[in-house]
């Protein structure tokens, strides 16, 4: 059994220091105590040894999705990774998300994600159900979408997606985060847009080959692949590739996709 934070009094953290041009791991040893998370250790190093160690964080409670990094090679929120889950007998490596361009130390340039989202057609509700301008929805329909709306935009799913990480296809593929976003819109009972053709042509849903790496790293436990991406892929196939459905639609004059 690895020594846990409760038994160890100090630990060494191997932290990536550098910018877009160059960088290296540097070792910092700091005191540890019961209940500490990786972000606490980073703060302690920052306060005592390296004031300029760049790190993003806000809530420190797993709610804002700012402190994404790779801890011992695993994409994690630093604020939700407790030291007693790690082997402290050897240095704990902390490095930035590798799919995105590095700004400095643990901070990456994630601005592409904000642009990618903007390219997805926004929510457009059907006319209100009631004269007071409100809608009626069943809890069960709401819950399906609420799963996707739990997303805290930590972009860890984007970080592990091989289409983005290894192939850097940022121009062709919006990544799991934004497929979840699109799924939330498509499955919203009030929404009236159809994004199927855009999912295929602009958002590159076909590039996802369902390796489920995204689902594994999601700190919110969203079943990204099974509940969001696969149903969207099915819509694309049903609406754009099914020849019989195509004939029916032509005859009925159904919704153009």
């Amino acid at each position, binding site marked *: 059994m690895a020594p846990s934070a409760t038994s160890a009094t100090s630990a060494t953290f191997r932290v990536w220091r550098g910018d877009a041009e160059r960088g290296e791991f540097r070792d910092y040893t700091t005191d540890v105590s019961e209940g500490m998370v990786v972000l606490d250790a980073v703060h302690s190093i920052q306060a005592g040894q390296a004031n300029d160690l760049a790190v993003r*964080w*806000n809530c420190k409670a797993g*709610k804002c999705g700012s402190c994404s990094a790779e801890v011992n090679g695993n994409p994690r929120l630093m604020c939700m990774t407790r030291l007693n889950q790690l082997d402290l007998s050897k240095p704990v490596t902390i490095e930035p998300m590798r799919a995105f361009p590095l700004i400095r130390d643990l901070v990456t340039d994630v601005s592409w994600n*904000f642009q990618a989202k903007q390219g997805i057609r926004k929510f457009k509700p059907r006319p209100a159900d009631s004269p007071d301008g409100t809608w009626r929805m*069943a809890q069960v329909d709401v819950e399906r979408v609420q799963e996707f709306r739990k997303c805290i935009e930590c972009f860890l799913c984007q970080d592990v997606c091989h289409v983005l990480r290894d192939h850097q296809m940022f121009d062709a593929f919006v990544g799991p985060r934004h497929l979840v976003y699109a799924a939330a819109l498509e499955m919203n009972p009030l929404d009236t847009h159809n994004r199927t053709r855009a999912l295929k042509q602009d958002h590159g849903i076909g590039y996802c080959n369902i390796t489920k790496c995204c689902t594994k790293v999601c700190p919110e436990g969203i079943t990204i692949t099974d509940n969001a991406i696969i149903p969207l892929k099915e819509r694309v196939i049903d609406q754009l590739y099914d020849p019989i459905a195509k004939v029916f639609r032509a005859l009925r004059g159904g919704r153009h996709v």
Partner: protein
Amino acid sequence: MPEYQTHEHDVLVVGAGGAGLRAAIEAAAGGVSVGLVCKSLLGKAHTVMAEGGIAAALANVDDRDTWKVHFSDTMRGGQYVNNWRMAELHAKESPDRVRELEAWGAMFDRTKDGKILQRNFGGHRYPRLAHVGDRTGLELIRTLQDHVIHQGVDVHMECTILSLLKDGDRVVGAFGYERERGRFKVFKAKAVVLATGGIGRAYKITSNSWEYTGDGHTLAYDAGADLIDMEFVQFHPTGMIWPPSVRGILVTEAVRGEGGVLKNSEGRRFMFDDIPENYRAQTADTEEEGWRYTQGDKAARRPPELLTRDHVSRCIMREVKAGRGSPHGGVFLDIAWIKSRIANGAEHIKKKLPSMYHQFKQLADLDITEEPVGPTTHYIMGGVRVDADTQMSNVPGLFAAGECAAGINGANRLGGNSLSDIIVFGKRAGEFAAAYAKTVRRADPNPQQIEIVAHRALEPFERGTAGEGPYQVQDALQAMMQDLVGIVRNEPEMRQALDGLQALRARAGRVGVGGHREYNPGWHAALDLPNLLTVSEAITRCAIERKESRGGHFRDDYPDKEKSYATFNFIVRKGGDGAMEVARAAIPEMPAELKQIIEEMK
């Protein structure tokens, strides 16, 4: 002359939480160009941490609810030193603002007939909080964020404003820096809306993120605006207390709204021991009645755990002081007991409070059942003094909304009223800032002022690592404010704090940082210090002047409420010599119809 990039907007919104986003949306709808400055990335602001819900008298769950009941609840919670006009507007407009969120894509939990579900919360007479499990803030910020990106607003992420820029009396822009490259920016604007949130980082134990350093409060103060009610800081009764690294993290009031109770080390529900006079008629007599209330029995009255936050926090402190606390100095919040009352209770808790469940499991390795909790600095009722209808401060062109503005909450805010506050007054600020911007001509900021602020911002680099460490000064300030101007206050300790602040200001003047300007958190911590010092001084000075106990402000040398203090608010402003001045502002007479509402709801 320092180098800087220049941006021009009609309206500049500083802060991108709920209030800032809502203001930006409304200003853009008014047909003006809008810039939105975020201290962090878009969508990460402190609003994401709000859990319980948005207070609005939709009357979906209890048809007795109306804006009048919400208004009187808010005034009672604020101990009647609120800006009554703001409380009135807030109660009247919050239902429309909530419905509007749904039109923009928010997915609230539903009632059986498909309407927006509402839950119980402290100080609200009826179930009033529209919610999404216990992650309502995330839903709100994401809805606004996903809406604003299609409104043609220019977003400046990871950018911190260091000073407002003026031309004569009028605010005409702001000066700041972007973190990625450390470059300075000048924003020229006809109107500026401050929506920067609170000051929690002035205290050691807080539920607030690193961003909450009183930026808007200080920017406004330095620009000549009045701050009001700064002595009223809210200590939320239930923060996590163990292990040390999670101390202060919030445990939502919704746990109590769903039936959770507070117990001392003897296992007794101590909240029944002390029920304030003005809430006695609304509070349950027995545990049984309290339980029935949380389960929707309209004939029952609320359990004392759902009294206002100021009161619950003090009761917890009393138990701890009397030696009846939990290990690590708190009390127990017990939600597990409801398993004996509802079939499948464990699943019910998980479903109603999913992110709380997650938080305890992951951070403390505890099943959410019976948690030790204690008060944590959560919110400041005080802030920029604004006109109730327009949200403009006493400085022309400067508006404020949300937590950094003040008035609606009086001496204590009710849970759920902040999410409604930010959308009601965020909208108003955006609307009136846009209207104002249309009436004035663009003016150039004073270049000398820019030079002074830019030079001051770079001073920590000149001192380098030989200077004082910024984090050490911040820690010392937080520890001092926690000890001397915390939940229980008195004159000698606060006088000591004033001396301490002077010494800390001197230390802050010697702070140095190493490295370079690109994404340097040490530099940022150094730049936050003057703001933390300003708000700490404002809190302390006002708290010394208020020689009574009311709402979030409690003094053991003046433990009672004094009628004479109910007729005015304390304001602080920067005097001609640069020293902080405290003055009194009379509360205007309430119109007869509002008085009557309060009388009827007693």
